[in-house]
């Protein structure tokens, strides 16, 4: 098996939940990410879906080296990224970039567009000034803006344009992977389509891989090659997108899919209305974390944590309903 672009191994991130200022008292741990594994291949998109607070952003931050994992590894082309030397980290920074959800807060309002886009080039001393400017021009054109925009400030742009700028700045260092944390959720329906199209075009052109985090299943369906479904810090289902959408297996995934409102009044989902609230990540349920809300709950669910098992080729599910493939 060839080494994938990115590999995430047994990754965990626990946040100490503390109270108090001087005498901090540990009030427990938020298991934001709890033992997850996945890989992303060069030029492909992994979609990561799940309820709010299930740990999607935390995962992305770990991959972006913005947080240190409690345990586990993130490997880029086989090299673990945490605990790297400065030099190596700098290279890593060039290889992995990001676009975040909120176009209004992802651009520094005090910097020109040109500065924003070229920042990663400037800090890594990527080239001469003229070269950098040339690159900024190209990038602006690539994301569908005009080179003159380099002189302008973010407030002069609309949300969609800002997201393009954010994308340009992510592309600047020719990354191999871009983490897209809900890149279109804050945008209007009509603008969303533009950005999604653009993302696809770029992937085709640059062969860049995406980690696409989204709420919206349709978006993931549209964009991703692989999809992972997270619930309370864990991956409960992980499969090629087509396989997942055609054959939803995990009860939570089912519930999630059923909650997607059909676009037409005549279409009807078999709605699985989940009972109760999302449990607190401070105190996750024992056994299968979903068992408190699961419509198919079995006695062993509260006892034993189901491992991720392959039920079909490439289709992994963590549920006691699917003992083996």
């Amino acid at each position, binding site marked *: 098996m060839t080494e994938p672009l990115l590999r995430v191994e047994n990754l965990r991130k626990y946040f100490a939940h503390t*109270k*108090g*200022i*001087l*005498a901090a*008292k540990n*009030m427990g741990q938020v298991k934001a990410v709890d033992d997850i594994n996945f890989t992303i291949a060069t030029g492909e998109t992994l979609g990561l879906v799940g309820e709010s607070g299930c740990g999607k952003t935390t995962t992305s931050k770990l991959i972006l080296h913005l947080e240190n994992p409690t345990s586990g590894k993130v490997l880029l082309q086989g090299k673990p990224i945490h605990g790297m030397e400065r030099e190596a980290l700098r290279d890593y920074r060039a290889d992995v970039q990001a676009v975040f959800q909120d176009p209004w807060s992802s651009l520094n309002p005090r910097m020109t567009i040109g500065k924003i886009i070229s920042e990663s080039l400037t800090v890594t001393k990527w080239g001469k000034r003229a070269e950098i400017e040339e690159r900024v021009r190209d990038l602006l054109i690539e994301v569908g803006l005009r080179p003159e925009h380099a002189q302008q400030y973010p407030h002069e742009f609309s949300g969609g344009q800002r997201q393009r700028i954010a994308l340009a700045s992510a592309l600047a260092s020719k990354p191999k992977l871009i983490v897209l944390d809900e890149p279109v959720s804050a945008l209007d329906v009509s603008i969303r389509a533009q950005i999604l199209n653009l993302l696809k075009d770029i992937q085709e052109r640059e062969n860049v891989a995406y980690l696409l985090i989204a709420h919206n299943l349709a978006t993931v369906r549209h964009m991703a090659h692989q999809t992972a479904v997270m619930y309370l810090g864990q991956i409960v289902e992980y499969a090629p997108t087509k396989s997942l959408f055609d054959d939803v297996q995990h009860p939570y995934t089912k519930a999630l899919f059923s909650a997607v409102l059909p676009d037409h009044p005549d279409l009807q989902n078999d709605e699985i209305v989940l009972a109760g609230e999302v449990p607190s990540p401070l105190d996750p349920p024992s056994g299968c974390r979903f068992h408190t809300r699961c419509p198919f709950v079995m006695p062993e669910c509260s006892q034993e944590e189901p491992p991720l098992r392959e039920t079909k080729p490439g289709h992994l599910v963590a549920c006691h309903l699917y003992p083996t493939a």
Partner: protein
Amino acid sequence: MRRYILQRLWQGVILLILVTTIVFFLGRLTGNPADLMLPEDATEEDRQALIETLGLDAPIHEQFIIFISNAVRGDLGDSHRYRTPVVEIFFSRLPNTLMIVPAAMILAILMAVPLGILSALRRGGLIDKFSGTIAVLGIATPNFWLGMVLIYVFSVQLGWLPSARMGGFEHYVLPTITLGTFLVAGFMRLIRSSMLDILDSEFVKLARIKGMSETTVVWKHCLRNALIPVLTLWGVFMGGLVTGAIVTETVFAWPGIGRLTYEAVIFRDYPLLQAVILMDALLILLINLMVDILYAYIDPRIRLAE
């Protein structure tokens, strides 16, 4: 909640230690009290004798250790100047200050809350402009000068009020106004601005949507929330209040702790200075603690946190 208070207390103790240490050493840099107590033609001999009497001949760190170990036992020493236990002096003066400071605060609240709210409600209106002017005047007028103008107008010219000193109710009017003015100004600004934010908030919108009357919206839904930032910035006001107290007490010959503190500095009365600052800090701490409790009372997010 209990944790919260305990934590505040714990922080307070650290603050006290910090402040006391600074004051102890900074105080000793200011010159020797013997120089101030001795007559103009005293000899070096007289001076040495007095320094010994005052216990200032020991090395400074020893003095500090002695001070701390005595302080822990509750003995803060005798004032050089008054030759009486400093704690006694402090507590004989404290009530006097405790009579004008709360009065000033009450005045400030009584004036600032309605004015702040009204000017937020009628932003840009007459009341807003009027109270804005008052606020700037309150900020821009030095306390002492205001006090003197008040004395001149209300006691000397009009003869309505006594000009200084403690006494019956009428004696409180001018000092309270003098001390309260900057508080009024500060509170008013703050309440106005937080009211403006709150009036924009969704929950106020919801209250209106529910059909609540303006009175309920303003005095129930807004006020409590508007007080939260006021309490958050309480510390800033406390510092100013002590300054105000020093100045006001000087102008009105009010024998309070503000003036006592000032004199302790000027006369290099180390034991008194140390004690007074320690007690001032303690007092500020207690008031802040009370404010914190009030804060928690107003804001359930704090009250109900573990």
